[in-house]
């Protein structure tokens, strides 16, 4: 039986061409990083909010935003103080130290813990009332993002650099908040949906 090489070559070439055309797009999509926000409010009037935004969009738009303290992706923060504590000085100190727990504040109603572990800055807040946990906040920020945030001038936070650092990071849950009727999640992955 005679085999026509054209009958084999043509389908093979078609498959190769399709693979070549779709592979860059598939790769590009796989590399696209997305930030997702989900807020779920339970109860009769409960509301669910889902936001899915590619980090590339934030990266493209941020330099164009010019408001009072935000220009070219940099936020002027001459005095970032919480409870009279210089947050920029604390973050800079955390950046240069090894893993460990830095701040632990325990009060009757609230426990706050700030630690560095496995390349992440961790902030945990637990609020209790009558011995029952009412609110739980977990923040987990890659140290590379913290470093990028502090990479600018002394009186500014480089949000654009932080977003770029976040784009290069793996999947991570950045913020988790659990209250009585509300849960909030903010996370990064490479999917364009939050399902």
């Amino acid at each position, binding site marked *: 039986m005679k085999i026509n090489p054209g009958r084999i070559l043509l389908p093979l070439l078609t498959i190769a061409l399709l693979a070549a055309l779709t592979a860059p797009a598939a790769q590009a*999509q796989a590399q*696209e990083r*997305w930030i997702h926000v989900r807020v779920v409010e339970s109860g*009769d*009037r*409960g*509301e*669910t*909010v*889902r*936001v*899915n*935004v*590619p980090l*590339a*969009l934030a990266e*493209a*738009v941020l*330099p*164009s*935003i*010019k*408001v009072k303290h935000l220009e070219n992706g940099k936020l002027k923060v001459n005095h970032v103080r919480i409870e009279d504590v210089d947050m920029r000085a604390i973050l800079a100190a955390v950046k240069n130290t090894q893993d460990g727990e830095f701040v632990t504040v325990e009060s009757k109603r609230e426990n706050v813990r700030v630690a560095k572990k496995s390349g992440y800055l961790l902030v945990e807040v637990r609020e209790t009332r009558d011995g029952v946990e009412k609110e739980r906040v977990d923040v987990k920020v890659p140290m590379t993002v913290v470093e990028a945030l502090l990479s600018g001038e002394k009186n500014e936070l480089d949000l654009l650099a932080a977003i770029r650092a976040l784009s290069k990071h793996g999947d991570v849950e950045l913020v988790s908040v659990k209250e009585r009727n509300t849960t909030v999640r903010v996370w990064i992955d490479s999917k*364009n*949906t939050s399902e």
Partner: protein
Amino acid sequence: MLAKFMTGLFYTTLVGGAVLFHEGAITVNVQEKRPQGDHVYVLAPATLVSWGVKFVPAEHLRRMPEEARQSLPALVAAAEQLEKIPDTVLVEITSPRERVKVEKRGNRLIVDVDSDRESVHVSIPLRAVRHAVAELQARVPAT
């Protein structure tokens, strides 16, 4: 003679329609849910938006609030980037009485609102948004 005229009219309409709709069409569909509620359906060429910006009197553009003026570059950047991203639901809000969805599908930005009182569907070609905002940015005088 009449046949030539009709042929010319046909091709003029075809070309004119292609020019008018080359950026796509904006659709707005609003349906009230009460008995015999109103139904509004608008289909308009998206080019009307960018062309319309060209005809806004300069004195009106001078009166544009500073905050709106400052947001124009961000809007252009956002529209450009939205054209590049894959199809996705950007924002979805669901409550017992209302559902709102903002979605990028194909080359369009689609807003759907479904509530007890009405359902609203708006579909805009992203390229038209970008062109219109860029045109506005070019025409707004610098402060």
